[in-house]
Every structure is written in structure tokens, then in C-alpha cells.
């Protein structure tokens, strides 16, 4: 369970969200909405641990026990980047990130994770630098990383960026599975149509731009 209480973030001229509270339990999909530049992405980076909040608390607990390092339970997908070593191939990328999580995966497991995203072709998956992928393929690989990782919390910033209809269907199915198996997710997305049946709550960040 992720409990965010009275979270505020401001830095000099950037006064973003203020006093934001939210509780995500197993199976929850929270949609974070608001106009451009209001701080949706900043909110997600604060949850992911990239920025420290000005005030407020983020607590993660599992069965009543507080988790010390919340990064071990969260997986973050940034908006305009995928976190891929561009000169390396798909298998090397997936293996690196899963090893950091302490997973020891054999080739079969990695191929299995690539398969639903249409990236499991021998010419695509190894000895082929990721920088030659198209925008959508890179996003698919980032989503494969996400679904490979066994953490309960997903923090998704515009996950649909560059995806085609087929990949979108795969993602929808994965997200549904993640939620029904006890995971939760926070989502920022310009297109809500694919998630209509999955969203359990919505939070709007209001603009407080004036001085």
C-alpha cells in the first residue's frame, strides 16, 4: 500500500503541487490529471525518488510492515525516455536492469519477456543496437522491462508514447494482469480511452501558478 500524505513540491519560481494526498492499495490504478506544466511528471518523479518533496510524506507498506527503501518496490517509466543503453542490444538491456533487481534470468526467460512485444526475433534481440529501433519499439522494450520486474508498484508517465494498436492491446492486458495480481499503478496519460475499465481513481493537480 502506498500512502502519500500532504505532499508539496516547490522550488523558487516553480510552485508545483501542494498538499496532495493519495492512497493506492492493491489493484488500484490512479490517474493523475491536470493541465500542461502543472507538475504531473514532477509528482511522479518525486514518488519514484528522483526529487525530494518540499514537505509531506511518502510511505510504502506491505501487510502492515513499512518498507524502508521504496525504490525496491517501485518501477518507474519516464515520459520521454526509456532508460536504455542505446549502443547495446535488447537482451543486454533487459538483463542489466533485472540483475540490479537481483533476478538471475536465463536467455529463455528474457526471450519470453520480449515475445509478447514482437521483439523476440533473433535479428532484433541480440547484436542489434537499440538505437536503431523505432520510437515505438524502444517503448515496447521499456514496457518489457517493466513487466519483467516483479515489483508491485508501477509509476507510468505517458506509457502509450509511440505505441501502435497492437502494442497498446498487449500493454492493456499486462496492466490488467498486474492489477488483478495485487499490484497498483499511478498513471499520467493524455489518452484515457484504453484504461477506461481499469482506472479506480482520479486525482487532479490544480494550478497554483500565481504568486
Amino acid at each position: 500500500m502506498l500512502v502519500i500524505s500532504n505532499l508539496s513540491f516547490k522550488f523558487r519560481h516553480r510552485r508545483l503541487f501542494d498538499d496532495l494526498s493519495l492512497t493506492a492499495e492493491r489493484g488500484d490504478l490512479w490517474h493523475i490529471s491536470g493541465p500542461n506544466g502543472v507538475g504531473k511528471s514532477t509528482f511522479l518523479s518525486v514518488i519514484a525518488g528522483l526529487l525530494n518533496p518540499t514537505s509531506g510524506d511518502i510511505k510504502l507498506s506491505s501487510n502492515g510492515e513499512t518498507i524502508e527503501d521504496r525504490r525496491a518496490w517501485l518501477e518507474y517509466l519516464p515520459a520521454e525516455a526509456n532508460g536504455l543503453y542505446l549502443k547495446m542490444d535488447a537482451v543486454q538491456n533487459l538483463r542489466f536492469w533485472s540483475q540490479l533487481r537481483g533476478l538471475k534470468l536465463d536467455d529463455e526467460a528474457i526471450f519470453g519477456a520480449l515475445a509478447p512485444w514482437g521483439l523476440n526475433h533473433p535479428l532484433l534481440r541480440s547484436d542489434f543496437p537499440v538505437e536503431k529501433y523505432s520510437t515505438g519499439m524502444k517503448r515496447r522494450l521499456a514496457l518489457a522491462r517493466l513487466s519483467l520486474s516483479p515489483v508491485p508498484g508501477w509509476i507510468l508517465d505517458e506509457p502509450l508514447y509511440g505505441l501502435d494498436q497492437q502494442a497498446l492491446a498487449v500493454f492493456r492486458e499486462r496492466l490488467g494482469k498486474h492489477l488483478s495480481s495485487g499490484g497498483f499503478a499511478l498513471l499520467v496519460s493524455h489518452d484515457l480511452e484504453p484504461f477506461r475499465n481499469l482506472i479506480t481513481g482520479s486525482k487532479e493537480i490544480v494550478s497554483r501558478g500565481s504568486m
Partner: protein
Amino acid sequence: MKATAFDQYVTLVRQGLRAEFVDKERLVSPVLFALTMLILFAFALGDLDQSLRIKVYLAETLLTALFALQLSFSRLFEPDRQDRVFDLLRTYPVSYSSLFLAKYTLVLILGSATLIPTMLFGAFLHQSANQSLFSWLVLGISILALAGLGALGVLLSVLTLKAQARQILYPILYFPLTTPVLLAAIQSARLCLEAGVTSPELKSWIGLLVGFDTIYITLGILLFTELMDES
């Protein structure tokens, strides 16, 4: 669900080495730069007087190495800067000391790959029929210097990670901060070649070099952790 700090260290070192080998141009350019510099120095200086050889060899070779290492340190985080890998690393449960030590190990490995050929080639260019300039001790001293330079190198790479004028900034900060290590290295190497390994001053200069290394590694690891918390 969490890897041990040591496992993470190994993973990070391996990934770092892999990133060098998939981009060979990155790997060889510092050493090529150093060798070119040495050849140009040799052209410019021409035939040298016997008494000057040691001084010139050490000054130009160690300075060339300092420049070449600066090149390779400043690009240390280049593969991680792409596609926000570095930010994603910070959202993973990675221990910051593992990350520092992994990058430091990488610097030592890649730095030696630049430093050792440079020292050998420099000695080769300046030797004469009756005087060999190669010495294991001098090589050891240069590795000790690398240990200090590398710690500062890793720290400065993170410091300048998000700065726009990285290429200009890096040397401006690197050269003044590393002066002590360079001075100690040149002094001890000179004493070693001129006065011989038994010189009493040599011992104290090498001690000083080790002291600087310790200070820089400690400072590096402390400040690096502080930096990673929010960058």
C-alpha cells in the same frame, strides 16, 4: 527482491565495460590522443641533452597522461546520460557506494589501458643507448597517481553531468583540483630515476601520494553519496 550491494557492483562494472566495448572509438581515442601528443613533443624537442632526458620524459609523459585521462574521465557517464539511464538507475534500489566503486573500478581499468601504453611509449621515445628510462617503480607511481586522479574524476563527472558547458568546465575544475597528485607523482618519479630507489626523500613523496589518494577517495565517496541523493 533486492540484489546485494556486491552483486550490484559486479553488474555495474560489467555493464560499464560492455558499454566501452560496444563503442570502440570511445575506448581507443584517449590512448591514440596520448601517443600522438608524445610524437608531436618528440618532433618539437628534437635531440635532447643527456641531462635533460629524465626531466623532459617525466614532464611530458605525465602531463600527456593527465590530459588523456581527463578526456576519458569526462566521458565516464556518457553511456548513462543517454535516454535517462542515469535517472532510472537512481530509481532502482542501487546502493550509491556500489555505484561509486563500480565507476571507480572502471576508471582504474580504462585509465590503466591509457596510462601504461603512454608511460611505455614515452620511455621508449626518450631512451638512449646508455640510459634506459623504463622503471617498474615509475610505472607503479603513475598507477598510484591514477588512483587519486580517478576518484576526483568520477566525482567531477557526476558534478558536471547536467551542466551544459561540460567540455569546457571539466578541465577547468579538474586541473586545479588534481595539482597535488600531479606534483607528488612527478616528484617521486623524478627522484626514483635521478637519485635511485634508495633515496630517502622518495619514500616520503610516495607516502604523500598515498595520503592524497586516501583523501581523494574518501572525499569522493562521501560527496558522491551526497550528490546522488538529488541531482
